[in-house]
């Protein structure tokens, strides 16, 4: 067939195939990071920000673009000439004198038709003192503040901390080139951390029946050279481990010389020098001595006591704790594999199509079998809760069981009351701690004089000294930090705002989607020397 006639066929050939819809195309580049489940979580979320500063509109921009469900700006301020100069989401001088939140809301909404946005022109401090205001604030998925007055912030953080069901609070502070943010939460349960430090087990040392059968029935000597060069490394290793155990009292290679000997044994199994599957088996031998039944980090979660005794479906993280406890039961079950359930994922390896597909099928079938056992245990352990849990949530949990995370947080500024902790952090992470203390000192001073007129190096140093306690020697990093703050105590610089806009939105996305791991502690930023660091984590 000629190229011309075939190229005319392309239309017919693809007629039945529907390209993705506009929404999928619009979000394509982010769906590759957090998939439909993350996108659904974003679309179901509502975010409240308590100012329309340049920093917070930058945060909102980075949440509206990927498509959160709803945002509200609570801000009674009128746009000033200074606001019109540093905020991209105000319409320049024509916004001056108009309600800042309203101006920003309309320009932010232009970014994405599917996002709802509203401006509420109320003073945060006063609204927080009303029942209506408190109920309103706690109805969001997430609350974010920037340079909020210290006494209001204190009240807000105490209020939100007091209710276990209340939303997390993100506290952002910045002046000039220096900034920090903190996420106040009781607990974050991360079902899909997307970290690559722990790989799921392939069960080479605890083979399931299909693997054992394959390995034991395999007679390497009888294979022709092509077949021999296509035996998957997993099977080679299962076989080699079996042989090793038979000659070592059922023990695995553990010492360095034993590991070396084991690798030599694997290499000796090959027929020709260039069999890549055996090279791969040798290279993957680490899986044999790095395959605990449960990775350490997960082991400590199996017996973690939930922060609340309530296991109702409405309690935050109740389902996650039920899944963790079920995982514990699964590992302990006498008739189970004695380790985490199989994830079912199989990496690519040097083999032929048929062997790979056969192996993949074996892994999938086993994973399905173990997941069914897991679900039975879930039903036994949590008869009321189990029926309310989405099947996809269980799938995701089991697939990620080898690296799920639980982060426990603390109330905003609680750390600042712990003088010993501050002093120790000041010596272990001087620049980060110094910047944090300087920003705390600044907000204390600005609480009395918001225009910054009383901010001096001396005043800041005095406040910092009060925070760490008299008698604690202040390192030179304090000087660098307070000097910058005294220079620009009320500056919301466009680049610092944009940087924070990215950082804070990124963390908000992690908190909302429960994918990737959010910051635990104070994330401190210095844009003079351009570094970031996390303290109190």
């Amino acid at each position, binding site marked *: 067939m000629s*190229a011309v006639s*075939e190229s005319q066929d*392309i*239309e017919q*050939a*693809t007629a039945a*195939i529907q*390209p*993705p819809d506009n929404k*999928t*195309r*619009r979000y*394509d*580049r*982010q769906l*590759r*990071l957090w998939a439909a489940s993350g996108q659904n979580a974003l679309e179901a979320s509502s975010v409240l920000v308590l100012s329309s500063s340049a920093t917070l509109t930058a945060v909102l*921009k*980075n949440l509206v673009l*990927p498509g959160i469900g709803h945002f509200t700006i609570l801000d009674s301020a009128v746009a*000033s*000439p*200074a606001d019109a*100069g*540093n*905020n*991209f989401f105000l*319409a*320049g*001088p024509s916004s001056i004198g108009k309600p800042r939140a309203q101006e920003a809301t309309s320009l932010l909404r232009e970014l994405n038709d599917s996002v709802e946005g509203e401006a509420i022109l109320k003073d945060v401090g006063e609204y927080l003192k009303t029942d209506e205001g408190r109920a309103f604030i706690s109805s969001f998925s997430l609350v974010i503040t920037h340079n909020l007055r210290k006494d209001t912030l204190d009240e807000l953080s105490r209020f939100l901390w007091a209710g276990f069901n209340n939303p997390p609070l993100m506290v952002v502070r910045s002046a*000039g080139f220096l900034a920090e943010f903190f996420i106040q939460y009781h607990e974050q349960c991360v079902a899909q*951390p997307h*970290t690559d430090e722990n790989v799921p087990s392939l069960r080479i040392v605890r083979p399931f029946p299909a693997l054992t059968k394959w390995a034991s029935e395999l007679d390497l000597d009888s294979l022709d050279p092509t077949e021999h060069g296509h035996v998957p490394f997993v099977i080679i290793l299962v076989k080699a481990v079996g042989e090793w155990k038979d000659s070592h009292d059922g023990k695995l290679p553990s010492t360095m010389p034993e590991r070396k000997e084991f690798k030599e044994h694997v290499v000796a199994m090959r027929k020709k020098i260039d069999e890549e599957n055996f090279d791969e088996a040798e290279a993957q031998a680490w899986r044999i001595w790095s395959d605990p039944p449960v990775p350490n980090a997960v082991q400590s979660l199996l017996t973690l006591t939930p922060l609340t005794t309530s296991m109702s479906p409405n309690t935050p993280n109740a389902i996650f704790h039920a899944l963790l406890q079920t995982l514990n039961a699964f590992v302990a079950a006498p008739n189970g594999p004695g380790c985490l359930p199989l994830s079912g994922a199989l990496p*690519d*390896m040097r083999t*032929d*199509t048929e062997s790979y*597909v056969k192996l993949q099928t074996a892994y999938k079938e086993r994973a399905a079998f173990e997941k069914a056992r897991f679900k039975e245990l879930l039903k036994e352990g949590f008869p009321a809760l189990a029926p309310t849990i989405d099947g996809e949530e269980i799938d995701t949990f089991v697939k990620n069981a080898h690296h799920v995370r639980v982060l426990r947080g603390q109330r905003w500024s609680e750390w600042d009351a712990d003088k010993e902790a501050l002093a120790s952090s000041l010596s272990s992470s001087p620049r980060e701690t110094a910047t944090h203390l300087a920003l705390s000192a600044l907000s204390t001073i600005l609480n009395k004089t918001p225009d910054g007129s009383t901010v001096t190096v001396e005043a800041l140093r005095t406040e910092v000294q009060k925070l760490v306690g008299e008698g604690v020697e202040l390192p030179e990093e304090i000087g660098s930090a307070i*000097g910058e703050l005294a*220079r*620009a105590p*009320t*500056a919301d*610089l*466009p*680049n610092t705002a*944009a*940087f924070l*806009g*990215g*950082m804070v939105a*990124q*963390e908000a996305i992690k908190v909302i989607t429960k994918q*990737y791991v959010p910051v635990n502690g104070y994330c401190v930023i210095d844009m*003079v*020397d*351009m*570094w*970031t660091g*996390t303290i109190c984590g």
Partner: protein
Amino acid sequence: MATEEALSNGNETDWSDRYYHIDQILDKPGPRTDPSFLAGEEVKRFLRETCKILVIGAGGLGCEILANLALSGFKDIHVIDMDTIDISNLNRQFLFRPKDVGKSKAIVAAEFIMNRVPGVKVTPYFGRIQDKDEEYYMQFNLVICGLDSVEARRWINATLVHMVDPDEPESLKPLIDGGTEGFKGQARVILPTVTSCYECSLDMLNKQTAFPICTIANTPRLPEHCIEWASVLEWPRVFKDKKMDTDDPEHIGWLYKTASSRAKEFKIEGVTWSLTQGVVKNIIPAIASTNAIIAASCCNEAFKIATSSAAYLNNYFMLIGTDGVYSFTFEHQKRDDCPVCGGQAITVNVSKEWTLERLIEMLVEKQDVQIKKPSLATPKRQLYFQAPPQLEELTRPNLEKTLSELVDDGEYITVTASSLPFDLTLQVKYD
């Protein structure tokens, strides 16, 4: 010469207190500011009236960069981008709206900025950076690069390094480069010939996964293998010289269908439209927030360099945002054998028995070289030329010869490629 009074207003579009925030920085030094900083009107005048900055790329990073520069007080901004707007840009390229799909990124972005930030002039160029000559690049004080193409970055880097004349301080144009991938990114400051350059750090790039052709042809195991089969082997077989357009949904549709039927034949699961598109276009995930962080870092450096109001980054900031926020700031070292800024030849240790073809394969694979379709010559002879066709034919027999027949131990080979604006010099050493 403008009077002091006119200056305090900047120009007619500046309103009082417009720069309330930035002027806190420009009116006095901080504890880490270099003594050469001229606080006050002089630095403001330079930033707002004299400084001319070039932004390369008006995409994910470029949109952010333009907005940040405009708010920072840069008023003479130029932007180059050869791309048009696609619907998949709208999740992060925030200067574009659905109605702009199909239009030039540079032009739409420039218009948007000028509408939103009064008094800022943005001059767009809808085309390739390679269209412009050294005289064009010489007019700028600074260059910021927000590109996703390695090749374009290598080109602008080599061009700016080449432009440096030690007797003319103005010929040294600081290059600020940003890049992102998912939750990760980096920003760096390059002072051509002074600090490490883009080429010096080529080996830091992630290696693209390339599937061996025998896997694709004979033993597919992953859905990606089936997609590669459709695009690398089937497309040219079926359509001969017809060029595949990865932006054409019909072409992607054909590849998807072809890959799906191969996957079905081999019982392989997981071929989807999205994966097909991802593999053939080599799509890198991208989100607004990471771009915002990296673009802000780049613009912050541009602001600090233009004003001397604070020390600038020396010279590399790397961010990984997947597990908390992890960043690393370090000085990337200049490479003495950098083909662009180093001056020394790259030494390659090879066996005498290697064929010329094997050497070429090694160059293509080598992380710190990354050259496509290279042509090679020694001072004495032409080893292999990719073009013109007569010369290619003439030199083709050399490909199968061993190196020792062609090149002496310690001899230099000059390597050229149409994609690179510079020559590589290799020194061959036999094992």
